[in-house]
Structure formats: structure tokens, C-alpha cells
């Protein structure tokens, strides 16, 4: 399975290596560096790179490449999924998974990697078990450790590994028992030139933050479970119960986790909450181009559209842009040709607009390409699919927990073609 792992930063330095079988020389990464050079953009590096004796599988997260060395047949997704799980674990431990964070915690990182794989095969990837084995570093603990000389390694032996609910440890205690659920929906859409929708889908997740004492058994039911077309669960969810009654029944992990991710059936029409009016044109022979953009709310069910951010990659021929926004601020990077406009909140009475001119290279012919406009926005207290949680019940413990549900709609990959 996974033979070795190299962590490579954006400038091509290997700053960490770990081997689970015999040592593989780091010169194997030369093939990887070649591929990076060949790819114009960092995200265009092929995830699987064959070399004469090995195969390199890499993922890119936060400008760090995680390069796994494989020697024999293994499903590539297995390795990719595992590498992402490693990054998630690091994020869980150190807050971020940057080069600096890894270097600062190199011993913890090493201990984690040691526990996560045995002979290249995943052993313990559940963050709950890992946290029992190796306590995450906190400022307080670091201070205490330096003074008392105690360690980060758990003194007790981890029992979670042996239990039937490996995602939850025993003996959890809280003074305030609370369970919060965030229903977050993202709209993925492509809008064409004329403003009609080419494709639009809603993807949602329910993220939970559960801090409950003991071994609570929760059930969550929806008003309209039929909306959910395709779902994937955290392993804690009892699949049979969902199949039979469309109820989520589970013993939750402790802390933050993703309970469910779902896709809303494509039969339902998606209410697109914003519209974009645009006029981006270049005239033949002139070194000026016109740029006009107006945003407006549409089908928002009375909720405000917030944190709106517009970005667009302008054609290479554009030298500079001279625009004036009616609200918010805009920036244009003349090197990458990236225009971004931080709009903020859309006021339905006074629609935000960005107007002005673009200067082109003199003498150059007008660009053929049409830029696409990428949109980001947020709408609080609205699940655009109409999904509603009916109730949340707890069994198995005597206290009354505090429960909270929050809804939010966001733009996913939301693109307007011009």
C-alpha cells in the first residue's frame, strides 16, 4: 500500500518524509518536480504520476503537496482519500495544515503518521481514537509540559479502538449539554449569456457540533425527507433506520463532525436568488472596452443576500481596468488579470453596480474570449431547497440538552457566462 510520504512546499522543498516500509530515496520526488514544472498551474499536476519503479500519488492542500509513494497495485482513490484524511486530522490538531504548522509540530505529526498507518495500511484514522492516543497541542498544555516535563502522549491505553462505536469515546462529560446543527446548502449553477439557467443543483450538508455527556442516542427527523435525493452519511448513522423510516438515528461523535451530505433531487426547480446584468464589450480597432455589471436579488424569500463577492478572469489583452463601484471595493490585478469586487450586502432598493472602461493593448485585435463571472454569496436563515428539520430527540441520557438548528444558503460553483 502506501510506502512513503513526502511533504513538499510550493517552492519544491521536501520538508518532511516518513517511511512505513523500507526507505525510499527522496530522489523519487524528482519525477514529481518534473510534473510540477510541466503543469502550468499547481492544480494541473496530475494526481497520479507513474515512474519506472514506483507510482506517485499526490494531493494539494493549502499549498502543500502530499506525495505518497506506491509500489504496487492499490486503488488510487484509497490513497487520495487517505491523504485528505491525514490533512483533515492535521487541521483538527493544529487548526491549519500549513508548512509552518507541520514544522512546528513535527514530533506530533510523526507520532500521528505512525499511528495512522501500519505497514502502509490505515490503522486508526478516526480522530476520536487518535486524540486518545496523542493529545492535540494546546497553548496551556505546551506550557504545562515544558514546566512539568509531562508528555502529549496519552497515558491511558486507547479503548476506543476496541469499541463498537469507535467514533465516540466513553466518559465524555460536559456541564452544558448542547447540540447544534447547521444545515448549509450550496447552489451550483451555470447561467448563460441571456440569463437563463443552464444547470443548477443544490448540494447540502448538515454539520453538527455535539457536546453531550455520556452516550446519547439522537434521532433527527425532517419535515420533507423526500427532497433528499442522494445522501452520504457519517458512519455513526444507522442506515437501516434511514431506509425504513427516513429518520437519522445515531450515537454522535464528540465535537464537530459532518453528519450528512446530500443532493437535492434534480427534478425540483432551483430558485436562483440573484441575477447579474452584464455588458462587457470590446470594439474592433479601439483600445478601450466597456464593462458594466449590475447585481440584483431574485427569489430570496425576503432574506437578505450578504457577503457577495464577484470575481472574473478578464482576457489577457486587457491592460488595466478603470471602474467605479456603486458600493464595496474592487481590485484588478494587471498580472493575473483577475478582477474581484467585494460587494457586501445587496440592497434591493439600490442595486449595486460596477461600471467603467478597460484599456487594451494598443494595436492588438479585440480578444475572442468572453470572461465568465464567478459569484459568491450567503443567505442566512434560509435553506433554498426548503428542507426543514422536524425534531431532534435524545434517548439514553436523563438530562435535557440545549438544541439549536441553523440554516444557511451559499453559492457553490456559481458561474455566469457572458
Amino acid at each position, binding site marked *: 500500500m502506501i510506502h512513503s510520504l513526502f511533504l513538499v512546499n510550493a517552492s519544491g522543498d521536501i520538508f518532511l*518524509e516518513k517511511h512505513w516500509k523500507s526507505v525510499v530515496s527522496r530522489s523519487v520526488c524528482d519525477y514529481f518536480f518534473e510534473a510540477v514544472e510541466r503543469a502550468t498551474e499547481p492544480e494541473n499536476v496530475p494526481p497520479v504520476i507513474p515512474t519506472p519503479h514506483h507510482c506517485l500519488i499526490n494531493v494539494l492542500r493549502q499549498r502543500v503537496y502530499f506525495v505518497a509513494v506506491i509500489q504496487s497495485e492499490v486503488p488510487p482513490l484509497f490513497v487520495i482519500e487517505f491523504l485528505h484524511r491525514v490533512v483533515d486530522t492535521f487541521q483538527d490538531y493544529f487548526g491549519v495544515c500549513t508548512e509552518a504548522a507541520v514544522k512546528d509540530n513535527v514530533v506530533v505529526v*510523526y507520532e500521528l503518521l505512525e499511528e495512522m498507518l501500519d505497514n502502509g495500511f490505515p490503522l486508526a484514522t478516526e480522530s476520536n481514537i487518535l486524540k486518545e492516543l496523542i493529545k492535540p497541542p494546546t497553548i496551556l498544555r505546551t506550557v504545562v509540559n515544558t514546566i512539568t516535563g509531562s508528555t502529549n502522549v496519552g497515558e491511558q491505553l486507547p479503548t476506543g479502538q476496541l469499541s463498537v462505536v469507535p467514533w465516540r469515546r466513553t466518559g465524555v462529560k460536559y456541564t452544558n449539554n448542547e447540540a447544534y446543527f447547521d444545515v448549509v446548502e450550496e447552489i451550483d449553477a451555470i447561467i448563460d449569456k441571456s440569463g437563463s439557467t443552464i444547470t443548477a443543483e443544490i448540494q447540502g450538508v448538515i454539520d453538527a457540533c455535539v457536546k453531550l455527556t455520556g452516550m446519547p442516542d439522537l434521532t433527527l427527523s425532517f419535515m420533507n425527507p423526500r427532497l433528499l435525493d442522494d445522501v452520504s452519511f457519517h458512519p455513526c448513522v444507522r442506515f437501516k433506520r434511514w431506509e425504513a423510516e427516513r429518520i437519522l438515528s445515531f450515537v454522535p461523535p464528540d465535537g464537530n463532525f459532518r453528519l450528512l451530505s446530500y*443532493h437535492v433531487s434534480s427534478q425540483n426547480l432551483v430558485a436562483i436568488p440573484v441575477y447579474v446584468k452584464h455588458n462587457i464589450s470590446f470594439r474592433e480597432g479601439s483600445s478601450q472596452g466597456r464593462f458594466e455589471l449590475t447585481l440584483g436579488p431574485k427569489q430570496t424569500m425576503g432574506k437578505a443576500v450578504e457577503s457577495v463577492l464577484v470575481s472574473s478572469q478578464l482576457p489577457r489583452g486587457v491592460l488595466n481596468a478603470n471602474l467605479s463601484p456603486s458600493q464595496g471595493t474592487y481590485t484588478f490585478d494587471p498580472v493575473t488579470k483577475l478582477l474581484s469586487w467585494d460587494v457586501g450586502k445587496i440592497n434591493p432598493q439600490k442595486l449595486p453596480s460596477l461600471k467603467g472602461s478597460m484599456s487594451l493593448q494598443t494595436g492588438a*485585435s479585440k480578444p*475572442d474570449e468572453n470572461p465568465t463571472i464567478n459569484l459568491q454569496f450567503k443567505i442566512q436563515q434560509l435553506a433554498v431547497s426548503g428542507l426543514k428539520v422536524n425534531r431532534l430527540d435524545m*434517548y439514553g441520557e436523563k438530562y435535557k440538552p440545549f438544541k439549536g438548528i441553523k440554516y444557511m444558503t451559499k453559492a457553490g460553483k456559481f458561474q455566469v457566462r457572458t
Partner: protein
Amino acid sequence: MIHLIMDTFLRYLKEREQEQLVKILSFMFYIFRHDDLKEMLDSNKDSLKLEAMKRIVAMIARGKNTSDLFPAVVKNVACKNIEVKKLVYVYLVRYAEEQQDLALLSISTFQRGLKDPNQLIRASALRVLSSIRVTIIVPIMMLAIKEAASDMSPYVRKTAAHAIPKLHSLDPEQKDQLIEVIEKLLADKTTLVAGSVVMAFEEVCPDRIDLIHKNYRKLCNLLIDVEEWGQVVIINMLTRYARTQFLNPNINESLLEDSSEKAFYASDDEEDEDKKAEAAALVKRKPYVMDPDHRLLLRNTKPLLQSRNAAVVMAVAQLYFHLAPKAEVGIIAKALVRLMRSHSEVQYVVLQNVATMTIKRRGMFEPYLKSFYIRSTDPTQIKILKLEVLTNLANETNISTILREFQTYIKSMDKDFVAASIQAIGRCATNIGEVRDTCLNGLVQLLSNRDELVVAESVVVIKKLLQMQPEQHSDIIKHMAKLIDNIQVPMARASILWLIGEYCEHVPKIAPDVLRKMAKTFTNEEDIVKLQIINLAAKLYLTNSKQTKLLTQYVLNLAKYDQNYDIRDRARFIRQLIVPTDKSGALSKYAKKLFLALKPAPVLESPFKDRDHFQLGSLSHLLNAKAGGYQELPEWPESAPDPSVRNVEVKDSVCARRTVLTGKAVKNQKSSSESESESESSESEDESEEESEEESESDTNIRKKKTIAPSGSIKMYELLHRITGEGLAVEYCFSRQPFSPDPNMVAVQIQFTNNTNSETKNLHIEEPRLQSGMRIREFAEIEVLAAGESVTVVMGIDFCDSTQAANFQLKDLKFSLAFNLTKRCFLSLFTGKLMGMNEISEKLTLGEKCVNEHVIVERVTATANLSRVPCGSDKECRFAGKTVSSGCLVLVTVTTKEGGRAQLTVNCEKMVIGTMLVKDIMQALSQ
């Protein structure tokens, strides 16, 4: 002294600065390299050792060589501090290979660890021991693995399974012995072991499919509870297994499909014969019936499509693709489309597999066409794969929408992607005749694009399209002839030249002129262009020798002295063919036929065609080349192998079991005598295991027979005192009788006593508020309870072996009564094999009254309904039982020592129950 100063100094510096400083200092004190670390490792303080180890590990992580510290580090292998120990393990595993002799020093520590009573320590000792790649210890490792494979704890057995591939890679000669261990572990019934042992199977002996037969059904059933990484491995292995054992569910359809596809070189006669043979085969074939085991696999893997782990979803998807009947494969599309929302690396792999799937089963993904639309923010490699899928999905009905989509792609800023889009349009046009003209027109328009790459790509694609119907398109050919002045991309130039040469009859005026221009620039062209110029010259010479004779001679002369030998060769060859001389052979007569033969139009094919002979989702499929260790996906067998090999041995007939039972009963009666030898008791264990299986069939008669009266008196517990209950008193006890209506329930005997002067009416249970899984069977309502009388009823409660209380209310009284009784829910005697169990040991001092064995036995059995098991030593008392609803085994051992001290050991799979039991028995014994 210097080192001390250096050391303190270092500690005050941040790591980055430290690194530089270390570089400088280590150069200066080269001779004393790592001396400070050695000193720290030799010190008595754990904190210094830890600091040293942390620095060493940081050095290993950066790829620095620290092997010279090996002796200093290995000394600390038995250190008490857990973190130091762990870091030493890390170091040891890294460098043991290089320092084989010194590594041997540490082995005894691990050998000791292997015998530790704590399962986690046993497991970690085995893990490190097996990771040390030193050939001398192979026999030790083999022994350790064998022992661990029959360990009580499933966790240790899992570690043993992990150790198998390690040993195999160290010494492949151990294969036969390791296969034996694998066979043993495959029979393991716990989910923890399943994934790891199948992994070992795949690495050591993937061809020993016969080992799977007996475990096939078990693996299918366990699958959903195995951890996710294990699931992937098991599913992939089962896909291969199923391909060898079951029949092709699509057998009838695939025959029909094949016959519709014409083989390129097959003559018509052959085809007819083929068809006849197939028809005959169809008639002969019996209607297909799916093996129930095949169905079991499909059914049990389906829920895993909902997994959050992309690798599991992909594994199930490939299983369905390779094994499911055509009608059922469709369900995987939805899940695969869902994965496309994930990280771009996941998308990349999924799209590769979807691209292969769409060639064979296009219909499956058609409803999700729009999910493959391309966004400008996608990375180029994803865009190109999506394009591939869209092209594969194109058919007569959706082509217009797809082409409209492609039109926007052509305007993209990403030129590689634009080129791929043009190719895609070309492929759509060749595959779907209706849109060929529209596509061609669109592509011709692109010829006036400003970007040269776009034009070049269009030229190449147009050339291919024109070959299909050249007569109608001489305009386009003329247009392209004009382009040759401007286009610089060699491939495009070569394409245009070939096109003009091939269809020179359609453009008789232009062709010679093009040759004239090309002759001028010949020396500066790329090789592929030069070859095409020679071709053009030859073709023109044959059709229009009057105008072009001199030009051709000129070109051939230039080519004769070209640097490239290919071109020189070609020139010589062509000259011989086309220019008639005395010596020229018979071939030159046919030169025209040779050069201007009708050429079949190229078929534009997906690069993913025929990739499905690799197992989908595998590395080999992705690379389109066999990776090391790849196991071919076997073809379906012609006729199914014997399905009975998967049958697990059926138990003996009923009467045989009865005799066992009676025998057992006799044994029970004399169980107080301790004369039985070890071997006998192990025999009885086997028998009782059979019994347990029978028990689950819940034959009440048999159950009654087995019940024996509990030893010791039954303790009554007060539920409701008569004062708080306003005259009504309620007491309960566990009667330790089986509750006949439901074997999973514990019988609770409740005694109501009416101490008031009036009658109490309608006593019954109301609104049990129970935890999930718990059940109560209520007693019949007591209509009247006269003053001063008492009534006893029995109710059944299924506690699900949990430690939670069952809450319910007694009507009329409005009291919420909580039974806190689960610790005593053991029933029925049982001596079982030790499965994987958690062991809890406690030392205690026996109470004053617990002087002899008899009292101990009495105390223990009073606390919990356990049965005494005979054992050899008189210092030891062993008890066994099992929990009522899930039948978990419980073993209790009390070892008495001198001076009233004793050790209590409880083994139970359920840890909570084990702990509670320890607490209770401790209390009972120390009183």
C-alpha cells in the same frame, strides 16, 4: 563544558534558528557530532531523554541521517515514559535495517511485551517487532504471529494480520506457513480482523481463491460493519472472487450486443456463421438464474454507496459495473456523480472511471449529463476528462444541447481546453451523421480564429471529417489551401498538404501552386511537413505530370540530401515508384493505384475504449498499464462451479444434539466435583458452543431443560416502600428463571403488597419510557388487590445488555420507578470459548467470612447468575455465563492467594458490563 553551554543556548532559540545554528555548530564540532544528544539519552531524567528523542525524530523527519546514535537510542527501548518509548520505536523501525546486530538488543523487550496481560501492549509489541526488517528474527516473528493469531483479543489478531505481509516481504519463503495463519484468521468472526486479513490475503496469496469459499457469506454479512479501509479491500477481492464463481448475469444480452458490432476485417461469410453459432448458443442456454450468493453480495454492498469515503463508493461502483445485471448497474451513477463534488484529485480519478463506464453503458449517465458541464474554474485536466465524458454521452437526442455547450467552450481562455473541445466536436461529428455538416461549418468558421492553436486543431479535425465525404467539400479544401501561408503549426501544415494531395483532383488548379510554394520553403520545414510535401509531389506527379514534373524532381532532389534518413529513404522509394526507368520494377505500373487508393476514413475513438479489461478503480486502469501486483479480473466462467463449496458445515441432526444436551445436564450435576481434567472441560466447551447456536433458535422446551435452579438465596430489592407508596409496597427480585415468552428477556418477579385498609385497583404498567432497543413485556393487569394481601407477578425486560435502567410507571400511583438492575441480567449457564474479550483484573482482599471456596462460590453466584466451571487448581474458581439478549460470554476467575488476598479477573466482550460486574463481585467478596 562547551556542549552544556550549547545545549542551554539551543533551547532558548526557536526551531528555525536552531536549525541553522546546529548546522554551523555541527560543522565546528564535527568530531563531537551528536554528543550532546548522546549525553541526554544517557541521563537519568526522562525529560532530557524525551527532549533528545524529539530532536532526533525531527531530524529523521527532515531526512537527516542519525544512524550513529543507534546504540544510545536503543538502550532506551525499555524506558518507562510512554512518549520516549514510542519515539524510540519510531527510530528503531527506521534504522533497524541498517544496524541489524544492534537491533537484536531490543528484541527481548518486545518478546516480553508479547506476553503482557494488556491486549494493547501485546498488540504494539507485535507491531514494532514485525516492523523491524531484520532477517535473523524471522523465526521469532513467525512464532509471534502464530501465537497472536489465536489471541483472545481481536485487536491483537488484527495486528497479527497486519504483520503477515511484513513478514512475507522480508522472507517470501515463509509463504506456506503464513497462508495457514491467513486461513485461520479468515475464519475469524469479528469485523476488526476481517479487513486486515483480507489485505494480507491480497498481498500474500491472492490466487488462493479456495480459502475464501467458506468465509464468503460471512464476509458479505460483516462488510457493512468493517472499518472503511477494510471495506475497500474486501470489496475488491470479492469482485474477483465473484467473477470466478458465478455466471455472467448479462450473458444473453451481451451475445446480442456483440453480434451487432461488426468486426473490421471480418468477411460477411464469417459473420453469418458467427451469428448462426450464437443463435444456437442462445437456444441451448438455459434461462439465467442468479446464484443466491451472488445476490447476497450485491445486496450487502449497495448501502455502502452512501459511504462518506470516496474509495468505498468507487469500490462498490466497480463491483456493480463488473458484476451486476445490466438493469441494476444504474444505481451507481448517482453516487459517482456525488463524488464529483469532492476534492479535485477525487474528481480526476472518478472521471477517469466514469469515462470508461460511459463507453459500455452510456444510458446510465445520460440523466446526469448536466453534471459534467464544464466551469471555467475547473483545472484543465478535469475539463478535458469532463469533455471526454460529454462526448461519450452524445447521441442523436442530446447532441444539439451538447454542441451548444461546446460552442461556449471554444471561446474559453484555456487554449489546451479549446483544442480538446475541437477534437470533441470532431468526434461527435463522426459518430453522429446528422450533425456532421453543422459541425464542419462550425469548424470552418474557426479557421479564421486569431489563435493559431485553435486554427491548427481545427485543420486537423476537418481533415479527418473531410475524408468521409470529400466530393462535397472542395470549397473547404480551397479555403484550407489558402491557410498554408499563415499557419505555422507543423501538424496543421502537414494535414493541409495531405488533404490537397489526396484530393488534388478536386482542386486541380490550386494544388500545383501549393507544391510550388512548398518547394521553396522545403528546407525550413519540420520533418512531418517534409514527408507530406514529398507525398503531395508524388501524387501530383501521377495525376498532373505535365505541370509538376520539374517541381517533383526538385523536391525529390532536395529530399535526397536531407539530414533525416527517413526523408532520404522516402524520397528514394518514391522516385523508384513514380519515375519510370528501365530498371524500375513491376510495382511502378501500379503507382497510381498505390498512392491514390481509396483510404478508409479514420475512426475517431475514445482513448478510454477497452480500458474496462482492467478492474475499474484500480491503479492499472488509471495508468492503462499493468501495475505491479495487479490481479487480472477473470472472465466469467462458462458454467458455474459448484456453489456448495460456500456452505458452512451444517450442525448434526436434532437427535444427536439432544444426546449432547442430556450429557451436558449430567455433567452439570456433578460439576461440583473437580475431578475433570483439562481436556474434558475443553470438550464440553465445544459442545456448549453448539448449544448456544441452538439456543438462538429459541426452542423453549430445550431452554427449560437446561435451566437449573440458582444456587444461593434470591435477594429481594425494594422498589417502593409502603410509606412512600401510601400503603402499597412493591418488591422485586430476579428470579433467574428464563422468561418463557421471550428468551431475550430477563424475568423480574414483582411482589405487590397492599398494606392499606382499602382495595387497590387496576395495577398495571403504563408508558414505559425506554431506551432504544429495550423492550418490556408487561404483566397482566391486577384488577383488584384486597387489603392486606400480596400478589406476585412476573414481567420480562429486555435490557439489551445495556447498563441503563428501564423506566416505567405504575398506573394509579404516578410514580416513576427506575429499576437499576442491569448488572444482574446474566442468565443460563454457559461455558464458552474465549472470544475476543476485554480483560479486567482487580486485586482485592477477601472479607473475613470468605474463608473457603464454598463461600466464594456462593457470594459470586448470589451477585450474578453465573455457573461454576470446573478447573484444575483448587486456588482458582472459575465461573461462566452469558448475557441474556446478545449472548455475550462472561468469564469470571477468582484466584485466592495467601493471607486472604485474591485476584479477580473478568473477561467480557462488553466492557461496561465487565466493569460493573467487577465492582459488584468485589463488593460481595470483600464484605
